[in-house]
């Protein structure tokens, strides 16, 4: 049935049976991380039990998108009991069904244990969730992504209806401009302005492109949105099409996310069936369709001009700008390229107004930002917070600090294009400008916590290995420069470097930044330059060859328990029971297994 007015949308929304009408609703996470822990099987088995007992009328088991607390997955929210189960396994299905669903008792072993060893029943009382505020992820985890009814019940497609039926394209752009929304993919360019530029160019055809080539290692918010709330993206892209005068949109999605295509395709078909996508949307003369373009594994395709080349079936090499895609983009036509997280803010802005959105955040960075919090931190998962929240709040309040209370030395923000932020800057409010001011950048939202054991030179080398591998090769500074930087870092970590290498790294780094063609090369040296700035002594230990490269045993602490020797994968630890053990440093692969196994902290790190 086609929807052609806001009234019919309202009637539809009212007809949807809400979760509160069921005796019990279980939101079971089927996000990537939970799926890797067999959550799909758990959900299937639980559903089979519900079917078997004919309880579908009163028990509402929903396979939802990411519930954000990935480190504790598979995770389930149970309403209205307000109970959250974490680390659910297949063996727990029987108990959840019999004890919780049938008998109404809480299974304490599946509750979350806080750092203070308290059992916490509801997610609402977990520090991880307390300071979060959701705009971009507003529906992720709440609704069944495969059911358009649930999206409509959350005011879904109302913003599209309001735009098409009550506003001119210019008015839509004006609202987005006034909201202060900026690109969430890394650059932070004002979204309204990008739309206005594209709208201003006269052309028979224009395109809206969604950049879903989330390549920053450690960031997975875009994926969670596509899998958990695909209709928001479809609605937002359609609004963008109306605003800039485009009738065709494309979602460019990386091949690693092929699994995300299933919910996305279902959503596209549902939207078309209901006249919310395709010909004559909402009964107006505006038509818009969305196609999918699959990437094939190239980080540089996250850069918009490279992405467009890839969409056209070429090698994903960037072009110089200007001309910008807003003038000459896909197939040479005016094109607006926006990121997934940026897009899904738009319906919320249209519904609640620009002022509402601008009331969150800082002066020049409005709204919220989603971060993927990972690394050496207790609570791992997706975190959406208002702009201006400090890193300390994210790491210690939401993240719960280090799992074993080791010292947190730095966080890496912005992935291979970003830099490290050290403890002294943890009170910086996070927004685009303050991060740039301290030599880091927002990037797409990867936030990796590093503790005292992290070797910053190795981490810089890791990122350089990534960028030199992903450099497309088109321009010389990036192609050869990043390779040379990587070689120097390798030389250093192999203890074959020299003090002059540090100067070479720095000079090369600045030259690559200043002369590369696209964003990849212009930011590739950042991880090196920023770690050199804050952890010069670690570089010097390598350059002056004062650093040990293997583990060792501190004799006076060793009790001769043999635990280290038993876990060593290369059998390079020798010693008799109750005697001091020794490590053959030439054979040690520095895996750290002995370090973890030692009960008396007698193992010395390299």
């Amino acid at each position, binding site marked *: 049935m086609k929807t052609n007015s806001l009234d019919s949308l309202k009637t539809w929304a009212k007809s949807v049976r809400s979760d509160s009408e069921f005796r019990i609703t279980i939101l079971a996470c089927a996000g*990537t991380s939970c799926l890797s822990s067999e959550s799909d099987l758990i959900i299937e088995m639980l559903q089979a039990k519900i079917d078997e007992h004919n309880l579908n009328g009163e028990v509402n088991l929903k396979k939802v998108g990411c519930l954000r607390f990935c480190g504790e997955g598979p995770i389930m929210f149970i309403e209205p009991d307000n109970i959250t189960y974490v680390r659910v396994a297949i063996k727990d299905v029987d108990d959840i069904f019999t004890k919780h669903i049938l008998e109404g008792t809480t299974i304490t072993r599946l509750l979350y244990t806080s750092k203070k060893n308290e059992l916490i029943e509801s997610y609402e009382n977990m520090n991880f969730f307390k300071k979060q505020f959701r705009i971009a992820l507003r529906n992720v985890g709440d609704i069944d992504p495969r059911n358009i009814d649930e999206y409509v019940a959350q005011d879904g497609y109302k913003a599209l209806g309001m735009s098409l039926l009550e506003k001119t394209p210019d008015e839509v752009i004006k609202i987005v401009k006034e909201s202060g929304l900026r690109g969430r993919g890394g650059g932070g360019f004002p979204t309204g302005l990008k739309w206005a530029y594209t709208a201003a160019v006269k052309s028979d055809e224009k395109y809206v492109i969604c950049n879903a080539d989330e390549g920053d*290692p450690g960031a997975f918010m875009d994926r969670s949105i596509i899998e958990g709330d695909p209709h928001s993206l479809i609605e937002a892209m359609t609004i963008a099409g109306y605003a800039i005068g485009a009738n065709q949109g494309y979602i460019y999605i990386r091949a690693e996310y092929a699994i995300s295509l299933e919910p996305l395709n279902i959503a596209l078909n549902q939207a078309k069936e209901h006249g919310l996508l395709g010909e004559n949307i909402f009964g107006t003369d505006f038509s818009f369709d969305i196609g999918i373009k699959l990437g094939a594994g190239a980080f540089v395709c996250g850069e918009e001009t490279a992405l467009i080349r890839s969409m056209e079936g070429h090698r994903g090499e960037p072009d110089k700008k200007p001309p910008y895609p807003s003038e000459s983009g896909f197939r040479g036509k005016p094109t607006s390229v926006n990121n997934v997280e940026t897009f899904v803010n738009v319906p919320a802005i249209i519904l609640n107004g620009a002022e509402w959105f601008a009331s969150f955040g800082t002066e020049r960075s409005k709204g919220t930002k989603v971060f993927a919090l990972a*690394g050496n931190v207790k609570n791992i998962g997706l975190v959406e917070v208002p702009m201006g929240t400090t890193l300390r709040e994210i790491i210690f309040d939401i993240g719960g600090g280090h799992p074993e209370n080791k010292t947190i030395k730095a966080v*890496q923000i912005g992935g291979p294009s970003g830099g490290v932020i050290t403890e002294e800057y943890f009170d910086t409010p996070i927004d685009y400008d303050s991060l740039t001011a301290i030599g880091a950048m927002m990037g797409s939202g990867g936030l990796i916590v590093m503790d005292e054991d992290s070797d910053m030179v190795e981490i810089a080398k890791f990122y350089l290995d990534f960028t030199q591998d992903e450099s497309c090769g088109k321009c010389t500074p990036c192609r050869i420069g990043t390779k040379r930087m990587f070689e120097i870092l390798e030389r250093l970590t192999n203890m074959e470097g020299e003090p002059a290498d540090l100067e070479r790294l720095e000079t090369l780094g600045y030259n690559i930044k200043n002369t590369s063609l696209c964003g990849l090369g212009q930011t590739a040296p950042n991880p090196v330059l920023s770690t050199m700035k804050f952890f010069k002594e670690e570089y010097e230990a390598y350059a002056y060859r004062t650093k040990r490269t293997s583990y060792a045993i501190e004799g006076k602490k060793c009790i001769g328990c043999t635990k280290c020797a038993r876990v*060593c994968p290369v059998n390079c630890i020798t010693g008799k029971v109750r005697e001091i053990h020794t490590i053959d440093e030439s054979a040690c692969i520095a895996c750290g297994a002995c370090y973890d196994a030692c009960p008396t902290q007698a193992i010395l790190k390299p």
Partner: protein
Amino acid sequence: MRKEILDISQLDKSLLHELDAYIDSLKGDKQEQLIHVLHRAQELFGHLPYNVQLYVAHALKLSGAKVNGVVTFYSFFNEEPTGKYTISVCMGTACFVKGADKVLERILKLTKTKKNEMSEDGLFTIKDVRCIGACGLAPIVTVNDKVYGKVKVNEVDGILEKYRGDHHEN
């Protein structure tokens, strides 16, 4: 220089028919959809040998060099055959911080292979992959579709043995 002479004598004809059918089904500019065609071809043939690339080039009226340029640009496309089990070690930052490089090193040593090369017994191809978005389980190793989370270096032997064992039973 190698001449672009297409030789399909070694290729499975039924798979070529399937590929033809896929190409026929595409709407709009077919050349623009080269990457999608290559994805399909790799699904069918397992990898993209010289003659499959040339076949795609002919079908889409592109030069062999153009197709090979695209194949070699993107990491998803393999020109060489892959082992029965593809072991992917996630090298995303979260996994790296938790020691994925050590895990990879151990796997390469045990299988006596280099990255992206098939082991001599045809069982394994080992790859380092970009973030697969399951950072809560870091470090992560996947063997075909099976995911191993929080992998420790000393667990690698056991994981590999399991697949060696499965193979002998078959």
